[in-house]
């Protein structure tokens, strides 16, 4: 596991390159039973190497073969440094809250954490246990895992 972790730390340079390179076909994955749900709370304006942090995280999750992720945009809130996120229709810059919901096996989530730590400078990452009931993976349209709770 440590070996894998180290390899994946080196892979953190991959996400940007993988955005340009053709994506290899993802292997078929079937998840059943116990899994981990990871929620990542960040701001919409957070950046990673010049691009949106949430985009960068989604790409790096794909590059690291994590089963699935969904990005949610909140309408208001506050977080790590008590800045207030609020939707303002006329404002040019509104840093809305973003939540990424990631589900995979615990070992894969934990192996991914060192990569995430490099990318998320301020934010909250929380893990919880979930039972995965059903998961289908179509190669042409990667499916999102369904959480039933």
């Amino acid at each position, binding site marked *: 596991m440590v070996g894998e972790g180290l390899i994946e730390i080196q892979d953190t340079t991959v996400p940007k390159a993988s955005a340009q390179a053709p994506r290899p076909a993802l292997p078929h994955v079937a998840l059943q039973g116990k899994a981990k749900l990871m*929620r990542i*709370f960040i701001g919409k304006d957070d950046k990673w190497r010049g691009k949106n942090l949430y985009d960068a995280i989604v790409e790096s999750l794909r590059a690291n073969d994590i089963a699935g992720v969904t990005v*949610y*945009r*909140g*309408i*208001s*809130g*506050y*977080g*790590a*440094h*008590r800045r207030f*996120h609020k939707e303002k229709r006329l404002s040019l810059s509104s840093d809305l*809250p973003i*939540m990424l919901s990631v589900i995979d096996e615990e070992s894969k989530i934990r192996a991914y*954490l060192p990569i*995430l*730590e490099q990318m*998320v*400078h*301020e*934010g*909250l*990452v*929380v*893990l*919880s*246990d979930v039972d995965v009931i059903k998961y289908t993976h179509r190669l042409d349209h990667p499916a999102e895992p369904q959480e039933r*709770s």
Partner: protein
Amino acid sequence: MKLSGSAKMIRVHFGEDDRWQGRPLHEAIVEAARREDLAGATVYRGIEGYGASSRIHRKHLLTSSDLPVMVCIIDEAAKIQRFLPILEQMVAEGLIAISDVEVIRYTHREE
């Protein structure tokens, strides 16, 4: 402020049109969470759903829309427990769910 290890997450589900003392309930809850010094709160709006009252929350073009709203709050168990009575008072009709979470990372930027 640093939060790590095991913590609790509250998710409150209700309608966007729900109000508390004349203002949107989701705003009132976020403000109450700040006042109680909870680590963070985020409001999400769903696109469709139904809930406590069996009314369908869905956006209509011509009629009023009462979309589902979810407020997510995370902090240590003791602070969440202290906040619950306040929350229960505010949420007249809705669902409050609490779950265990493990907090991995939370940094406070110096400004």
